């Protein structure tokens, strides 16, 4: 199947709009949230327009249709990430929710004073703070895995942090603020060799590469649908069955119980034990549609195209005076984080917006990264499979103009 950028772009209605009079959208903020293909939008609408019912308990036709679509989405996720069983796929509100679930259940049940939890210096706040909270509650110690000035976590640096006290190693697959890839396969192996469990935050990783959780060997893997062309408010916690089974439930409510008595309740089987209350039905179905969309593409060709645009962007950005790219690892995802000499990132972001160009500015929920580089924020342009060279040309032109306006 040949890759056609025009054909991909025609699948994403949000791309085809003017954001200000005469200014067509140039969307370079896909690491914050990816745009949605029409098929995802249609799937979400059809849940409310046709199969509008609660799931798992109804005997009527609508409920059965909605239930079938939710559970079909679980199968799609299972195969997309290479999980061994569908029961290992738990739907959450997103990556943050999934990390909190593990921290609050596995963490509270297993951590004690003297134990150590490793997170990455380049981590997103969601991973840092979720574990910080459970460390404060249990007396365990939170330790950052340092990065070097290229924004890399090396295997050696990680190994130096490990000890017999290490119980959990939680880190991202890809840094959201710098775009660097972490050597997660080796990190997981090393952690396991010291008896620690691992959680990989795949929010930025699953978007730019194929993932197989069994090959990786991760104990937990989390991601959000909305960065993978799906709806907001829905995400996935993958966990190895034995770990999930041993974990106590987190939130109580309907669907997660087996038998409720005032003397004590028993809980439902996996994955429902962790899915209290009515699920985000439209979100789950939208996530399923996003995976179907990717499955129907030549995904390898699409990811290669994205990597080509990324390489083009690195060269093009070098032509902007006083621009410094942060995140210069040997392996980078298509997230371009940079600072401009004498230009505040928010000014650059506003002036680009005036041209219809959407980028992200600020600390990207990674303040320790900003502290590492002694800055308060960066400008970040991030790509997706629908990004093209034209987007990069518009960005570079806009940045050059912004620099002329702001450096006076």
């Amino acid at each position, binding site marked *: 199947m040949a890759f056609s950028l025009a054909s991909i772009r025609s699948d994403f209605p949000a791309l085809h709009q003017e954001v200000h009079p005469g*200014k067509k959208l140039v969307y370079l903020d896909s690491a914050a949230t990816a745009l949605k293909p029409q098929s995802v939008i249609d799937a979400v609408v059809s849940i409310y327009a046709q199969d509008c019912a609660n799931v798992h308990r109804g005997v009527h036709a609508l409920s059965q249709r909605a239930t079938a679509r939710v559970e079909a989405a679980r199968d799609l996720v299972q195969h997309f990430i290479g999980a061994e069983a569908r029961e290992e796929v738990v739907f959450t509100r997103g990556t943050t929710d999934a990390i909190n679930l593990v921290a609050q259940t596995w963490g509270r049940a297993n951590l004690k004073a003297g134990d150590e939890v490793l997170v990455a210096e380049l981590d997103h706040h969601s991973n840092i703070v979720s574990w910080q909270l459970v460390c404060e509650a249990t007396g365990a110690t939170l330790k950052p895995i340092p990065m070097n000035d290229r924004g890399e976590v090396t295997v050696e640096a990680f190994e130096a942090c490990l000890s017999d006290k290490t119980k959990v190693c939680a880190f991202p697959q890809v840094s959201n603020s710098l775009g660097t890839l972490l050597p997660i396969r080796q990190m997981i192996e090393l952690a396991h060799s010291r008896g620690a469990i691992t959680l990989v935050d795949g929010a930025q990783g699953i978007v730019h590469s194929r993932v197989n959780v069994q090959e990786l060997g991760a104990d937990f893997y989390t991601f959000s649908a909305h960065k993978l062309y799906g709806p907001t408010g829905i995400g996935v916690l993958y966990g190895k069955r034995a770990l999930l089974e041993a974990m106590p439930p987190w939130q109580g409510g309907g669907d997660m119980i087996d038998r409720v008595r005032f003397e004590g309740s028993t809980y439902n089987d996996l994955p429902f034990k962790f899915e209290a209350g009515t699920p985000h039905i439209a979100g789950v179905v939208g996530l399923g549609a996003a995976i179907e969309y990717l499955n129907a593409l030549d995904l390898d060709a699409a990811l290669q195209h994205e990597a080509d645009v990324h390489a083009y962007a690195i060269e093009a950005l070098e032509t902007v005076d006083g621009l410094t790219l942060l995140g210069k690892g040997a392996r980078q995802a298509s997230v371009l984080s940079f600072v401009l000499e004498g230009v*505040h990132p*928010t000014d650059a972001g506003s002036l680009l917006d005036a041209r219809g160009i959407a980028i992200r500015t600020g600390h990207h929920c990674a303040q320790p990264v900003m502290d590492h580089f002694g800055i*308060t924020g960066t400008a970040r342009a991030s790509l997706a499979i629908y990004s093209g060279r034209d987007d990069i040309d518009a960005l570079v032109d806009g940045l050059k103009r912004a620099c002329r*306006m702001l450096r006076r």
Partner: protein
Amino acid sequence: MTEERTAADYEAKLEELAEAFEFLDDWEDRYEMLIELGDELQPMPGALKTDATKVKGCLSQVWVYGSREGETMRYVADSDAHIVRGLVALVMMMFDARSAEAVANVDAKAWLTRLGLDQHLSPGRSNGLHSMIQRVQAIAAG
């Protein structure tokens, strides 16, 4: 030091700005004007840029300091980002050199709507315009 402005000076300047904005349909040009506006701000002494004067909720750093001179509120404010400094200048034009009572009653939304900047006013916007105005009014309320 730029000359100390009166409420009447500010009103005239705001009026001028609103008319100029009506002729600009390109946001880049409007931002350019805002940046120029920021250049005219009264300089804020470094000693007044403290944690206490810092306004939370802005992506850039913003400081607002206010004091009472008789019946009149006097403000100085600054930001480390140019466009936000322009917004700071706008806030000064709307609130500086007024009585505490007038500060409480300024219809900022009306001005910003005329300037096409009203969407910048919603809470949670990263430029912090909302927080800045809240701070200015809180200072006047004592």
